[in-house]
């Protein structure tokens, strides 16, 4: 045990019934490399008691996943691991792979982010779970199979007997993650390590899976290590939190201590940079400047120093140790933690909050503003074909099935929905500027079904796009300069003013002009997204379509981009169509929001109204599924859980498309249900506002 730990557990040395189940002490992981080694983990210590849930948070590259891989003994050969990992007092480090294999699965189990990698594609899931059962216990094959089915039932797989005979690829992402959990708890493990178990899933599915994890924990009494970057998930799920930065724990303590009484600037900044679903008023987010340091050549002092607003000279001398905050097991690694404590500083006290200029257009009443984008009854159906040689049409995918949208000048419309709801198709349909199969797309008064090539080119000037993945959307073979200059050249910008315009754009998005000659891969994710934004703004568009512009970025970087977008909108009088699956971000940035489900808009209106009092059962479920980074609020919330997965858009249910999963439908009487089954509910206004919901029995309800 390190000296820094003595504060917490004096009695932990005795390995008794109440001793820690898992004890990690001073764990270091180094990947040898040329010319410098990568020091991925530098001194992690934690203890896990029976039934306890520990959350490990950090951004990408913080070493949080490497830590748990080291605990499981799953690191590739060549990684140097030192320190100690004890399970029930027994040392695991340095054991052979064979010995570890006995422990793995039986006493420690792991749930990965991508279950498809962890499941073998050629065996049925039942066989795989049964096998896991057989390896570690003496049972007959039939018993093992029965146990597998029982486990699948436990994790909420419908028709467990039949589904056990299915192969992994026949399951949806959420169902696969359930199978992984079933496999993890097959042998009543003492510890379950979950590495970003819900990151790849949609929110409603995430809520289901978290619920299953909780149930699994109740069932087995296992302790859980929850590794994630999502501060909302952590808030509602864990007892204690360990925050990692640059391979080191920088703060640890009870979840409430960390969230309400943070003592380390990094943690505080991280929490301040998350957009909140529950906060209506628009305060700019707190961006943490800069990027995490390289793990190869760390400076001697506090690794957070280059980004820390409180940094003083003394910070650079020596890396601060975790020091206990008096009177609790809360520890922070910051030499100014005492000061933060004494002055009771909050995040806005220590971080400079950027000023977002006043949006002048907001004073003009909405009805008087110009309509920038008008979509009426847009429909996009793809043919569903089968066969490679002889393609034949076997059906139709109703990707977008009649939607109306309207964006006015200076307005941000958030288009939200889970994957497969048709929001991306809608977007592409707008951007193509083709004549739609049915319906109308009107950009700045010009309808796409009636414009010629020259006119279309002019529309393209006014309409630009920022994509989700800043790496994929920038041509890797072009320099930043060429990338930003491309739209200018395409639209015959005067050559002599090209360079000055590009420099101006770089400056506009907060990049220094000296970066112009670099290639995209030499930038960090956030900087790349800034280049993407600069390119989108090159032709001074009126409407910018943003396709999940921040979802590929780390939280602390995300905040900077969101602030930038808000700032640009106010300064340049832009209108945004902001497509996202993250409803917290949308609440923060959008003025109006439209919720899509299976190719239809189910609810639309002012952001505050829709979030404050959603009327459609789907919106209610969606909003209630999103975890809020506020432990106290999280504990007080109840989730509306949706059953099952999204139906296939090739075969949507009759009547109301949501009825197969609608929680309200279940509470209706037989008579009332016929309306849901037979007639498709139109988008109807609620009261005299333009807040509308497509439900026969719409009823406002507070869920956040």
């Amino acid at each position, binding site marked *: 045990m390190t000296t820094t730990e003595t504060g917490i557990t004096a009695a932990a040395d005795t390995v008794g019934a109440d001793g820690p189940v898992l004890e990690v002490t001073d764990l270091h*992981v180094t*990947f040898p*490399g*040329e*010319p*410098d080694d*990568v020091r*991925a983990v530098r001194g992690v210590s934690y203890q896990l008691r029976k039934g306890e849930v520990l959350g490990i948070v950090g951004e*990408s*590259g913080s070493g949080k*996943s*490497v830590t748990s891989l080291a605990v499981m003994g799953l690191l*590739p050969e*060549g*990684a140097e691991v030192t320190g100690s990992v004890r399970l029930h007092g027994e040392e695991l480090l340095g054991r052979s792979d064979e010995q570890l294999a006995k422990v793995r699965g039986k006493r420690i189990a792991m749930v990965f982010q991508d279950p498809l*990698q962890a499941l073998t594609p050629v065996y049925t899931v039942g066989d795989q779970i049964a096998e896991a059962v057989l390896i570690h216990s003496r049972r007959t094959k039939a018993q093992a199979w029965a146990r597998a089915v029982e486990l699948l039932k436990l994790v909420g797989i419908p028709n467990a007997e039949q589904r056990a005979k299915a192969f992994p690829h026949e399951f949806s992402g959420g169902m696969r993650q359930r199978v992984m959990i079933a496999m993890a708890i097959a042998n009543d493990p003492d510890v379950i390590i979950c590495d970003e178990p819900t990151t790849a899933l949609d929110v409603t599915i995430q809520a289901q899976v978290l619920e299953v994890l909780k149930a699994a924990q109740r069932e087995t009494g296992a302790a859980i290590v929850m590794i994630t970057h999502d501060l909302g998930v952590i808030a509602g799920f864990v007892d204690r939190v360990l925050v990692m930065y640059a391979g080191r724990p920088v703060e640890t303590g009870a979840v409430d201590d960390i969230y309400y009484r943070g003592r380390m600037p990094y943690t505080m900044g991280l929490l301040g940079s998350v957009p909140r679903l529950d906060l209506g008023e628009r305060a700019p987010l707190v961006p943490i400047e800069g*990027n995490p*340091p*390289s*793990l*190869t*050549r760390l400076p001697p002092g506090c690794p957070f120093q280059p980004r820390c607003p409180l940094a003083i000279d003394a910070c650079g001398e020596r890396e601060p140790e975790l020091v206990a905050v008096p009177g609790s097991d809360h520890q922070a690694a910051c030499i100014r933690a005492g000061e933060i404590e004494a002055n009771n500083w909050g995040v806005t006290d220590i971080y400079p909050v950027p000023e977002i200029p006043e949006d002048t257009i907001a004073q003009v009443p909405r009805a008087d503003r110009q309509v920038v984008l008008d979509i009426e009854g847009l429909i996009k159906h793809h043919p569903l074909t089968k066969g490679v040689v002889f393609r034949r049409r076997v059906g139709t995918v109703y990707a977008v099935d009649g939607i109306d949208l309207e964006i006015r000048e200076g307005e941000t419309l958030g288009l939200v929905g889970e994957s497969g709801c048709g929001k991306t198709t809608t977007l592409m349909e707008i*951007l193509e500027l083709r004549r739609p199969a049915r319906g109308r797309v009107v950009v700045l008064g010009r309808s796409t079904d009636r414009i010629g090539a020259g006119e*279309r*080119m002019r529309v*393209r*000037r006014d*309409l*630009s*796009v920022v*994509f989700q993945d800043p*790496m*994929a*959307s*920038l*041509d*890797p*073979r*072009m*320099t930043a300069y*060429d990338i930003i200059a*491309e*739209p200018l050249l*395409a*639209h015959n910008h005067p050559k002599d003013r090209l360079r000055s315009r*590009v420099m101006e754009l770089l400056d506009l998005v907060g990049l220094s*002009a*000296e*970066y*112009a*000659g*670099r*290639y995209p*891969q*030499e930038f*960090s*994710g956030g900087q790349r997204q800034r280049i993407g934004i600069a*390119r989108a703004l090159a*032709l001074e568009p009126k409407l910018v379509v943003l396709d999940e512009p921040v979802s*590929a970025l780390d939280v602390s970087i995300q905040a900077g981009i969101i602030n930038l977008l808000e700032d640009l909108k106010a300064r340049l009088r832009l209108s945004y169509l902001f497509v996202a699956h993250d409803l917290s971000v949308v609440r923060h940035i959008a003025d109006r929001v439209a919720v899509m489900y299976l190719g239809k808009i189910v609810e639309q209106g002012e952001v505050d109204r829709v979030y404050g009092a959603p009327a459609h059962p789907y919106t209610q479920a969606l909003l209630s599924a999103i975890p809020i980074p506020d432990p106290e609020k999280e504990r007080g919330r109840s989730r509306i859980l949706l059953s099952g997965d999204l139906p296939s858009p090739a075969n949507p249910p009759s009547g109301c498309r949501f009825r197969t999963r609608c929680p309200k439908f279940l509470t209706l009487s037989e008579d009332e249900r016929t309306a849901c089954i037979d007639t498709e509910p139109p988008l109807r206004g609620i009261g005299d506002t333009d807040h509308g919901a497509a439900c026969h029995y719409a009823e406002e309800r507070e869920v956040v």
Partner: protein
Amino acid sequence: MTQQAELLVDDQEKGPESEFETPGRWRTVWRQLLKSRQAMIGLAVLAVLFLMAYIGPLISPWEFGEPDFTAFYQPPSPEHWWGTTQTGQDIFTSTMVGLQKSLIIGLLVAVVSTTVAAVVGAFAGYLLGLTDKALMWVTDLLLVLPTFVILSILAPRLDSGSWLIFVVLLSAFLWMVTAKMVRGMAISLKEREYVLAARYMGLPAWKIIFRHIIPNMSSLLIVDATINVVAAILAETSLSYFGFGIQPPDVSLGSLIAAGTRPAPTHPWTFWFAAVLLIVTVLAVNLVGDGLRDALDPRAKARRRKRRRPAPAAAAGPVRPAAGTGRVQGTSEKAAGKAP
């Protein structure tokens, strides 16, 4: 995972080289090329070969085709630096003249066939539809024709001076497989967001193809061109060996090697000089190709850097092969089967 790795690439590392400037694409590539040692060695060797090929015959005391009736099958000597043949011809002079032809044929064929492959494949893959059908029909047709037979029928009918037609013929039979690969890649590149971005900003298709699609396949194309140089020289060699290639009195390395194989066991100089020059040429071209590929691909630089210092994520996760390596392999396999 990649993002994780990239975050580790810190800013200081790039140093002062990236000062306030915005060099054009080709200048950057050229500068990268200058930095690559192997490319420079390859270029130097090629330059020397060219110099030799063109200056050699001038400084040699013997004219090309001029027989020395006093020396048949003489080993290298001060008079005949590389010895003589059965008919008393000076091997040094004829090898140099042969080298001229082989170098020109190899490089020209490579450039022509790779360009055709890139353009045909990229247009077919990007535009799809009717263009694709038509282009692929021609490609498939040429692919099924028995190349070697056609070449051996046509070649002897060509006049001795018309080696340019020979170049066209060789190129015409080398581009199809690459074109098909290029088409496949173009189809997948078409879906990339940067291509979409270019489309949505209103760039016409041909510009997108030349600015985004083809440059992003340059690794494949460079490798392909390198292999084509070799394939062309070898094809010419084997055709000449069977007497169908370069027709006398013209010579090439191939026809010289062919002529030298029979006396080689007893009079090795008739064979070895041409053979060694062939190997040196092929190696030099490969070096230049490797260097060019790295210079054209800014990712190669980052890749090398990453390989030196593996990021934890990259090391921990399932290791994905670096982009490009797979392709390179594919290309060489293909080339092996393709040389006529």
